[in-house]
């Protein structure tokens, strides 16, 4: 199932933290790390992120599979960067020259990407999607955008199930995907039907909202109170990022 949230259920400290605290921490962490360059600092970031991942106690095979997928883009860059970056030659095969600068750049991107992604899996993956959406609302994202996100999150599973049944239906009628117009037309029809059904569903949802007094303003229940440990955790991660920034400044002079 493509839409499973394999990491969202669990009993670790990270699972128990308030999604708002985790979301703030994830944003601070991502933005800071994106601006860091020093390899040693980035390595330190990866280690911190690894600690978070361990603390989250996630299903290991699933996690490794996910990390593999994440690094596809990075692998794509490794195909090109080591020889297309100018600099001091490390090895030469025929016309291809691997440069020290190219390798270091590749390594830098890899470390930076994984430091950010690992932390985000540990922080955001350990909340249910609906809770992350709630957290965004708490961060004063514009109302319409939050509503769009809400409906998207709410109906994505139903629509995915619809697609699953439609995909089964074409399979049951002896459909075999090939590189043909028939195949593309069939998929286009499925997409079209998903959109038509989504369109009509949205109309009914809107009516259901109007029937319960909706006037364009989203009113919601209070969140649970932030606890000390939530604030402490967000502060701890923010503190860590500050330390990394300080290290970076020190190393680069």
């Amino acid at each position, binding site marked *: 199932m493509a839409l499973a949230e394999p990491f969202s259920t669990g009993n670790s400290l990270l699972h128990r933290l308030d999604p708002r605290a985790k979301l703030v921490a994830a944003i601070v962490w991502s933005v800071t790390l994106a601006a860091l360059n020093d390899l040693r600092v980035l390595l330190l970031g990866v280690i911190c992120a690894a600690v978070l991942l361990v603390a989250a106690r996630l299903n290991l095979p699933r996690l490794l599979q996910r990390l593999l997928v994440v690094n596809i*883009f990075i692998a794509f860059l490794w195909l090109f960067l080591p020889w297309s970056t100018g600099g001091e030659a490390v090895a030469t095969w025929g016309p291809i020259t691997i440069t020290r600068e190219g390798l270091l750049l590749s390594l830098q*991107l890899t470390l930076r990407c994984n430091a950010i992604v690992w932390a985000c899996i540990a922080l955001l993956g350990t909340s249910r999607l609906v809770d992350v959406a709630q957290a965004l609302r708490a961060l004063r994202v514009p109302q319409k955008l939050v509503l769009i996100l809400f409906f998207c999150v709410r109906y994505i599973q139903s629509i995915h199930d619809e*697609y699953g049944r439609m995909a089964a239906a074409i399979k049951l009628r002896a459909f075999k995907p090939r590189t043909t117009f028939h*195949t593309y037309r069939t*998929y286009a029809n499925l997409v079209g039907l998903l959109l038509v059904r989504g369109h009509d569903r949205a109309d009914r*949802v809107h009516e259901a909202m109007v029937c319960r007094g909706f006037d364009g303003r989203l009113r919601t229940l209070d969140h649970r109170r932030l606890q000390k440990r939530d604030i402490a955790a967000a502060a701890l991660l923010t503190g860590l990022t500050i330390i990394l920034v300080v290290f970076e400044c020190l190393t680069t002079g």
Partner: protein
Amino acid sequence: MHIAEGVLSPPVLIGGAVITLAGLAYGLRSINADNVPRVGVMSAALFVASLIHVPVGVSSIHLLLNGLAGLLLGWAVFPAVFVALLLQTILFQFGGLTTLGVNTATMALPALLCYLLFGRLLRRQGALGVVASFLGGALAVALAGVLTAAALLLSNAEAFTTAAAALLVAHIPVMLVEGVICAFCIAFLRTVKPRMMPKPRNTRERVDVG
């Protein structure tokens, strides 16, 4: 293809975020309160549709559908793409929080352009409608590839030249397939639910709710 975390330079990340914020602001203003559920559910449908893998020769690709999204949603494509990418980030770690701005802009700007160029032609029967919807789907993907490549080049022109070129080449088959699928899909919608075609002017749809 969405650019992963940690690859782009801070100025490019900031630039992408600014474009996306502007697009979001204008896009959200174009959505009236009654249409909010529609944009939400449509972005869910487009998200699911973008998980579909279609065969191309011996390989397969997954659909982007940004052109289709633009043609059907107009300016609302910005919030729709943003929400879909945010979910991809949280669910699959495709892209990331810091690249959300750049990735939204590279997908939504071409989609919007295709809407402005071809949107009004889609209601036409016959060849014109088919060509417009094919171009809408294909051009949106092509430009998304160009903008993605540009984001890489702006970050580090020297190092990323070959990677950006490879990315562009990889988009060519995707572009053709997307054009074909977009054309068939628009044809389906024109038959089954003509109401979903882009409106001729800026006429708001009548909503029969008190």
